[in-house]
Structures are given as C-alpha cells and as structure tokens.
C-alpha cells in the first residue's frame, strides 16, 4: 500500500497537469517501481489518484511496453532485437538467456532475481548487441558477458 508520503508526492505530481489523467503514466511507473509490476491493487490505488477506472488504467498498462501487468524479477533485462542487434547476434543471446535463467522469455527466474525479454531498439545501435538491465545500458554483449551479467544479478538478489 502507498504510504501517506508517497500518496501526497503523487498527488502533487498529478496536479501539475491540466487534467488528472495526464499523471496516470507517472503514477503507474511509480507504483511499478514499488511493486515491481502492476497488480490489481496497484491499479485500484492509481484509480483513486488519477480519476480513471481500473479498466481505463488497464488500457494503459497493456499498451505501454515498459508497464508490466505480470510479476517480474527484481531486475528486468531487456535485450534489443531490432535490426542492428539482430545482425549482431541478438537471437542467439535471447536463446542463451532462456537457457541460463531456465524460464521462457518474460518469465521470472526461479530465485525471483531476473526477467529477460526482447525489446525494441534501445538507441544503442553503435554498441550492438545491446540491452538494458533495469535502467542501465549495456553494449557489446556476447554469450559470456551476458552470462556474467545474469550471474551478478542473481548474486545481488541473494545479497
């Protein structure tokens, strides 16, 4: 549940726009940061703040690719598979990620640390193949650096 402090922060942000609903994206991003994804309870909390129904918020959550309606790992790793990264081996990296995490793309690794999914062009074409680990941009990936990244994220989660 949102704390009073968090709720007033959101209210303040929403009030910056001429219409409450314009604050919905920020509100959903904020709630996702808190819960790692957007469970029904989060939509209910956002609904109260943004003056939109849960269904209207679900329309947004299911449209925008960075909003997640299903549980995700502690770190979401988005491997770019658009053309420059496709040419530089993204399909093999995605297959390797599935093998290393032991779950299909989009799933949560058994220890809850990682979700890997393909993503559209990250604007890192000069560093292909590239990925985002959380918000951190990573370029020049190969099978071994991907393995090291996933292992370090698992260790972080344990620690």
């Amino acid at each position, binding site marked *: 549940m949102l704390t009073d402090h968090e709720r007033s922060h959101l209210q303040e942000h929403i009030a910056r726009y001429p219409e409450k609903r314009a604050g919905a994206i920020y509100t959903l991003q904020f709630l996702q940061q808190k819960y790692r994804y957007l469970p029904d309870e989060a939509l209910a909390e956002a609904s109260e703040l943004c003056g939109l129904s849960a269904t209207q918020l679900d329309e947004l959550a299911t449209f925008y690719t*960075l909003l997640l309606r299903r549980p995700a790992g502690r770190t979401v790793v988005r491997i770019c598979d658009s053309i420059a990264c496709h040419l530089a081996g993204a399909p093999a990296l995605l297959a390797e990620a599935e093998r290393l995490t032991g779950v299909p793309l989009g799933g949560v690794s058994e220890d809850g640390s990682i979700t890997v999914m393909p993503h559209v*062009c990250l604007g890192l074409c000069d560093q292909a193949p590239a990925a985002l680990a959380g918000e951190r941009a990573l370029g020049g990936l190969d099978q071994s650096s991907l393995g090291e990244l996933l292992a370090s994220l698992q260790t972080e989660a344990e620690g």
Partner: protein
Amino acid sequence: MELVLSRNFHLPRPPALAEYRAGGGYEALTIALGQDPEAMIEMVDKTGLRGYGGAGFPLARKWRARGANAPHPRYLVMNVDETEPGSFKDRQLLYRDPHQVVEAVLVTGFIEQADHAYVFVRGEYAEGARRLEQAVAEAREAGLVGRNILGAGFDLDIDVHLSAGRYICGEETALLNALEGRRGNPRAKPPMPFEKGLWGAPTLVHNIETLCHVPHIVSRGPDWFNGQGVNGGHGTKLFSVCGEVQRPGFWELPMGTTARELIYEHAGGPLDGQDLVAFLPGGASTAFLLPEHLDTPMQFDAVASTGSRFGTCGIIALGSATCPLDFLIGINKFFVRESCGFCTPCRDGLPYLHSLMERIEAGQGKPGDRELMLELCAKIAPNSFCAFAPGAIMPLESGLKVFADVIQEHIEHGACPYRGAH
C-alpha cells in the same frame, strides 16, 4: 569543421550550468529575448532548417502555420521519443549536453510565445531524462526557467515527461495522446496539432536535434549556418552508421556529406572479407539504396531523388555475408511488434507479411509468394490510418524488388542460400 551540436561531447560528464555558460551557453537565450520572434522565424526560414525526427517538415513553415495570433495557452513539445531502429543521435544530445536541450526549448518557446513546454522522453532513456531534469532544475534556480526569465518578462516552465515505451508515441498525434495519459494511438488530422493539440490547445511538436540548432542560428545568423553544409545541404547534422561496418558510430558533419564518406571513412567500410550490398539511408523505415548510390549527398532532396527518404539519417549497412531476406525479417519484426493495433491493414497485414517471409526463409516458400507480398505492400500502405505502416512497408517493398533474385532462389531451392555458407 567546427562542432556545433556536439561541441561539449568530448567532456567526461555532461557540463553543469557553470561549465555550459563558460563555453558561451545561454548567450543565445539572452540574444533571443531581445529580439522580435518574427525576425527569428525569418532567420530560421533562410536556413531552410527541416525537422530531423524523420518527416523533414520545414521548421519556419510549421511556425507560420500556427501563426502569431494563435490563442493561449500554447504548448511546445520537444520530441525525444527516438525509437527508429538505426537512429541513436537524439540520445547523444539528451545524455551528453542537457543544458543545450534546455536552451533550445527556451529559445524556441520564446519564438513561439509558448506558455508551457513538455519534453517527451522515451522510457528507455530514463537516465537521460534524469540528467535533463537536473539541468532544468539548475536553470530554474538561476532564473533561466520559470517566471520572468532573465528579467525579460517572459515566462516558461519546462516539464520532463518520461514515457512508458512504444515507437508509435514518436508520431506527433500519438505523442499528444500519450502525454495526456491515453493510449498512444494516432489522432485523425485535421485538426493539426498546431490548431488543436494538447488539451485542445495550439501545440507545436519538434524533434530535439532540430531545436538544438535554433539557438545557434539565432546567435550566429543564417549565413553562418548555411555555410556549414556541403553538396546542397545547410548546417551540420548528427549522422550515424550502424549494422555491418567496421566502426559503427555517430559524427557531426556537414549536411550533404556523401553516404560513401560516412560508410567508408567514418564507419571504416564493410566488415572484413565482406562487400557492402545495400544500406538504408535514414533508419529502418526507408527504402534501400545500393552501392551505386554511395555518392548521394545525405540531405533531404538528394536522398528523395533516389526514391528513398533521408528520415533520421541513421544509416544501416547490409554486408554480403548476411541473407537479405533475414535482414528484411529483422526489420519487419520491429514493425510487427510496434504496430499500435488501431487499424486492420497495419495490425493484421504486417504479421501476415512476416509469416510469408519466415516461410520462405525456412525453405517452404511457394511460387508467387513474392508477388503476393508486393500486392500486400501496395494495399497496406495506402489503407492504413497513419504514417507507421507506410514506413514499415517502404524497406520491405524496396527489398522485395532489390533482392528479387535471392528470394527466388530461396523458393526454388527450398532453402536459404546463405545458410551453411559462412
């Protein structure tokens, strides 16, 4: 050549306010605040500066379309939703010199006599958005943003809006919906955003690179700007090359620099042992150019005369070891996923094309498949709601023609001729 947009890119960190000002930063704002907006529109008109977000609409014409008498409130939106595959220039401006971005918004906001500015940043550039927010806060503290800017009686506040994904949000009407907290489906035009944009008010949406040129034009004049270009181009441009080249990267160079110079000199040419087969000149949603087009000056009109588009001028190179059909699949995969789903030709047509290409690549193509795909291309592009599907179709349609022999070979031999060849 003098670096203009990228003059601070050599710094280890983006310059803070004091450092940016020490290099002449915000002087253009002071100059602009003392001038008549109409005179500055005239200056920009003399440069012919066009939009660098892909569509290439002349900036001064956009300003005049809205006009000086548009009702208030008026909104200015800077578009930093760069998601075009092969385009990574806007990212550099956002991450490496955020005060330049703030100054560009302020000078443009004054020219437009805007009441409020939003910078719309794609969600994947969250770190860049934070750097920009920090720059806005610093500028606000120094009296450069907010009320009575530099004592000139002009008010403008800037909000940084971090988006939550989706390529289509870069389309200006979809962007307005996204900013209003709706799904990012494009709106019907007319009304144009300059008539009824954000919350029904006059709104001008501009690409970040386009606006970053404006303060320099205001402070140094159109003749200086025009003198920076070559081969019929004006000013400088952030060019980039990626794909199958030795040194993918970006460089600020004179507008009109040839594709040959970009690909062979700056990007080091094709990968070892390969030849350049073709390239997309302006990002993923442009038509293929061939080695015979390498001497084309990279500027809007020259690229348009080849039948392709200048777009964002993010060149994507295809080398001789890669199956061109696989390249087309790689391009189309993006558009299939990013279609907003609003209209049927785009939502259903692009995946259908994709399944046909995958079938051929897997060696199960049938005679007539290529012709069927060309027919689909001809039907999807003109019958879709916005410019997304025509952009998706452009590389496919041109690829189906340019690589007709390779596709035929796949179908005749029931296998990809490149598989096992390397």
